[in-house]
Structures are given as C-alpha cells and as structure tokens.
C-alpha cells in the first residue's frame, strides 16, 4: 500500500471513535515503526542495573531493529545497532552477558563497546576506499540515548524533545517507583516473564488503562477466587494472587468513581487508585511488610514514608512501549512484532536492601522465607497470575481508552517529525470495528 497522506491518517481518529485500520493495517504498522519507534519517540530499552559493569550488555530491540545496550569502558551507557557494518549479520546473539569487545561471527569484524570498528581480518583485501577508522563503518550508535533515574530510553531522531520533556508528568510515576525503595535505589531482580499474543501492540497498551474490562473479562478468575476458601493451605503466593483476582471483581461504581484514568500529552496515561497495600498483601498483618515500612520510615522519616506509600497509581503507561506499577515494583516492556503480533516482557525490581535480606536467609523457616519472598518480589506473583490466567486477546471491541492510538495518529500525521502537540485528555473512546 502507498504511504498514507496526512489527511487520510487524520480521518482515522475521530471524536469518540478510532478506525480499526489503526490496529489491523500492515501499512499503518510500517509507518508506526518508521515514524514512532524509528522517530522522535523515546523508546524504553532497559534499566541501568541490567548493565552494571563495563562490558555488560543487554541485546534488545528498538522497534523492529535489533540493538545492544552496553556499559562502555568509560561507564557511559551506549546503544548501538546489533548489525555488522560489513555484511549486516547480527553481531550479538545472546540476550545478555559481559564482553571486552563485539566480534561478528561471519568474517570476524571486531568492534569496541561503543560500536567503533576495532579490527578487520584480511583488511588489505578490501577496496582502497575502505577506511576502518571511518565512524560510519561500525555498529552504529542510536543518535540519542538518555536515562531517567536509571531507566534507559533511546530515540532514532537526531533532534526533538528531550527525554524529560517527552515524559512530562510521567516522571512522577518513575519517582514513585524508585522512592519506595528504602535505599532510594532499585535494580532488576527475579528474572523475566515473557508472553505473546495475536493482537496489535496498541490493544495491549490501551488495555493497561481500561478500567471497564476487569469485572467482565476476568469474571472466571474473579468467581473462582471469590469462592476460594481461605482455610486451604497457602505459602503466601496463592494468597496474594487470590486477593488480586478478587479485587478485579470490584463493582463498576468502584471503577467509575475511585479508580479513574489520567491521560497526558504524548500518549501517556495512568490508572488511579485501584487498591491499597492492605488489600494486596495483608500488609498490616504481614511482619515482613511491617519491617519494610519501618525501614522506609527510618530512612525517610515517618511523614515522607506515609506520603510515598499513599501514592496509588495502578498502571503508569509511558508511550509507546513501557508500563509499570510501583506497588508491585513491576514493569512491562511492549514489543510490537507485526501488526497482529505482540510480545511483552515483564520485569520485577528489588531494592538492594531487599536483596540482601533474601540472600542472607537461605535457611529461614518455611513461613519466614515465604514472607521474605513476598517482600522481595511481591510482583512476581502478580505477573504470573495476571498474565498466565489472562485471556487471549480477542481483537479490539467495545469502549476503551484510546490515548495510545490517538498519540500514534498524531505522530504519524506529523510525518515522524518532532512536532507533537499536547493531547486533549481522552478518557473513553469507542472503537467502531464495523465502520470503514
């Protein structure tokens, strides 16, 4: 299909509805990859704790392109395209590791950690124009890389809004995520949960701030959890999962009047007060959670600790590809694969204090170690349950918050240039799958 004109694209988003082509048309998907993920948007790549030491790397994707996030010898975080300058082979084949240099498996071209060419076997055999010192001959750096308090983003646009300008008010959600650690520092901990489904990436993103769906689509797990006897044995993992599922059964009036959806320029959003810690982890009865609160109060003072714990945002959705929930210290990265295929990686964070508590008690009593496990990684249970128990995506239908789609449309129409207007708040827009 021919590239879309700005006028055609503009018609796809109308007051109160968006066109289904935005979720199903491969040509639109190509434009998104080119103009959003390959344009001015700041795309989340990973957390600095994943690459602590010089030479640590994490191979991931920026849109459809494979890239490597790496800690350079000078301590800087670099993001380079995972592609050999010679014949285009993928250079880094493993997801993570540590290396002094990158070596392409095809002809042995070797690169510095910053992507500059280091050595080429048989280099006398190349044409005389070949200059191994030319910075364009290398694993090319992504033009802009920035970190907000350890969260690393990259943008393929050479110029445009700064990361903080792009994030806007969402920086306060990152602050909330980090402030909850007594030591004020968090790190990726507890592995990664990966799942995949046949639907457009925006369907997932919009679902994260859709308060109208849980009571209906999660009905089977709500019923099963509400009928579950609390007398049956649990080591704690089942308990928190069941609490979570029961909470999805809150009546519509709760979702309408208490939760709320906040939307911001550039497609960002968050879901409001979903439920508090007491409902999630029986905080007041849980000795480990009480210890955690005590540690937070000791470090930050009682008043500040209370302020931190009273921030209740459910999913904070940072357009276009990352969403997190600070009560659970959980973060999801959304990878668009094709127009109708999406992969999501879910990570958990722990603070250094939490980690040392974990590793220091390998032989704790079953009850104690369970409680510790809940403290160390409460999010693990949430992600396991929600994602494992979730329904397969069934395509867009019904009312939804379409902030992500509206932002997509705006950027596409702007031709990928950094001319992004502040969005009006769109809280509930109906898709019209049948219209054309």
């Amino acid at each position, binding site marked *: 299909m021919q590239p879309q004109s700005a006028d055609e694209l503009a018609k796809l988003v109308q007051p109160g509805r968006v066109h289904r082509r935005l979720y199903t048309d491969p040509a639109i998907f190509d434009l998104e990859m080119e103009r959003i993920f390959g344009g001015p948007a700041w795309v989340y790549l990973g957390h600095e704790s994943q690459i602590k030491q010089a030479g640590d790397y994490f191979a991931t994707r920026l849109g459809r392109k494979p890239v490597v996030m790496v800690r350079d010898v000078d301590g800087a975080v670099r993001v380079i395209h995972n592609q050999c300058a010679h014949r285009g082979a993928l250079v880094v084949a493993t997801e993570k590791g540590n290396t002094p240099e990158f070596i392409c498996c095809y002809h042995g071209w070797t690169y510095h950690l910053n992507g500059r060419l280091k050595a080429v076997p048989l280099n006398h055999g190349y044409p005389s124009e070949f200059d191994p010192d030319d910075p364009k001959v290398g694993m090319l750096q992504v033009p802009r890389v920035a970190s907000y308090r350890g969260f690393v983003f990259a943008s393929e646009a050479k110029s445009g809004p700064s990361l903080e300008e792009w994030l806007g008010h969402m920086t306060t959600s990152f602050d909330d995520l980090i402030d909850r650690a007594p030591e004020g520092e968090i790190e990726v*901990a*507890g*592995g*990664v*949960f*990966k*799942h*995949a*489904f*046949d639907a457009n990436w925006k369907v997932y993103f919009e679902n994260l701030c859709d308060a109208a769906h849980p009571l209906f*689509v999660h*009905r*089977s*797990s709500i*019923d*099963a*959890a509400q*009928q*579950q*006897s*609390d007398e*049956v*044995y*649990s*080591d*704690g*993992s*089942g*308990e928190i*999962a*069941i609490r979570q*599922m029961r909470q999805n059964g809150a009546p519509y009036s709760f979702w309408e009047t208490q939760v709320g959806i906040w939307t911001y320029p550039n497609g960002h959003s968050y879901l409001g007060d979903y439920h508090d810690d007491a409902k999630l982890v029986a905080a007041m009865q849980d000795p480990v959670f009480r210890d955690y609160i005590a540690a937070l109060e000791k470090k930050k003072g009682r008043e500040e600790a209370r302020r931190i714990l009273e921030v209740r945002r459910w999913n904070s959705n940072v357009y276009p590809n990352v969403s997190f929930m600070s009560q659970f210290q959980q973060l999801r990265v959304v990878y668009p694969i094709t127009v109708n295929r999406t*992969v*999501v*990686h*879910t990570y*958990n964070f722990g603070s250094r204090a939490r980690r040392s508590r*974990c590793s220091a008690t390998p032989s704790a009593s079953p009850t104690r*170690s*369970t409680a*510790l*496990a809940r403290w*160390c*990684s409460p999010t*693990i*249970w949430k*992600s*396991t*349950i929600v994602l*494992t*128990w*979730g*329904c*397969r995506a*069934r395509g867009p239908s019904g009312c939804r918050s379409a902030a992500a789609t509206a932002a997509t449309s705006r950027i596409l129409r702007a031709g990928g240039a950094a001319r992004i207007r502040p969005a009006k708040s769109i809280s509930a827009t109906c898709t019209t799958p049948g219209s054309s």
Partner: protein
Amino acid sequence: MTANARLREAAADTPDVQRCEDFLVHEAALLDEGRFDEWLALFTDDAFYWVPSEPNQASPHDTVSLIYDDRRLLETRVRRLASPRIYSQEPPSRTSRMIGNMRIVEAQPDGGRLVRSKFVLVEYRREQQRLFAGTCFHKLVPLAGALRIKMKRVNLVNCDAPLDGLVVPF
C-alpha cells in the same frame, strides 16, 4: 500383626516403577479428558505445582515462574477451568499427552518417590495446534493406600520463550 506381615504391608505400600508409571499415565488421561477436579484430587493438601520460567531455575521465590501454585491457588485455577465465563477456553482446548522415560530418581524417607519423566503435549484450539515438551518431576507419596502428588515440577524446553496464554495445566 507379625513382623513379617508388617514388612509385607510396608512393601505393598511402597511405590515401585510400575505403580508410579501407572499413576502418571492416569494423571495424563485425567488432564486430556478435562477431568480437572479428579486431577486436583491427586494432590496432597500441602502440594505445590510449579512451572519455572528459566532452565535450571533454583527457586520459585526469587525468580518469576510461569506457574507456581500452592494448594489454595491450584484449587482456584481448577475451579476457574470449570467456569462458563472462561473465554480463553471458548471453545475448549483438546490435548494429547505422551508420557515416557520414567525413572524413580530418589526414594524419600517418608516412603515417597521422586519420579522423573518426559512428556510431549499437543494442544489444539481454534484451528491452531501447539506443541509442548519437557521433563516432569513428581514427588509421589503413599497416602491411605493411594499415591498422591506432593509436588509437581514441569520443566518446559521452551520455558523462557514468549508463550501465548497457558490455560490447560501441563
């Protein structure tokens, strides 16, 4: 009761290879036939059912799992499978499992057996067929004359791949 009779009784309650294998084949049939309540009844009251997300995962407590159910959550999972509102099973999956290469790897002090087996599982639903394979560890204990599962661990060969929704238990 004479000492010999007690020994004979103890021997009868000690799970041998054949008895363990029969048990695993029975369990697979219950799952394939959608008899999930009967499957649940195979577990002890303090059982765990675990599907790790990493090869050689050491613990369910410090690393995320695909599934980690204590008895309470396993009951909830099974009750959900019977719900008329479980849209991810509309229509239901059909599955077929092959169990093999079974070995008793450890006799345990409580008379239980740690059993290792291989499985291949085909799941069909909505014109799509999926293939799972892996290694199972069952901790089987004799209880009131029958074997029960105290722990079941399922190591999928593709445990760290991005997987579409997992609804029918392994």
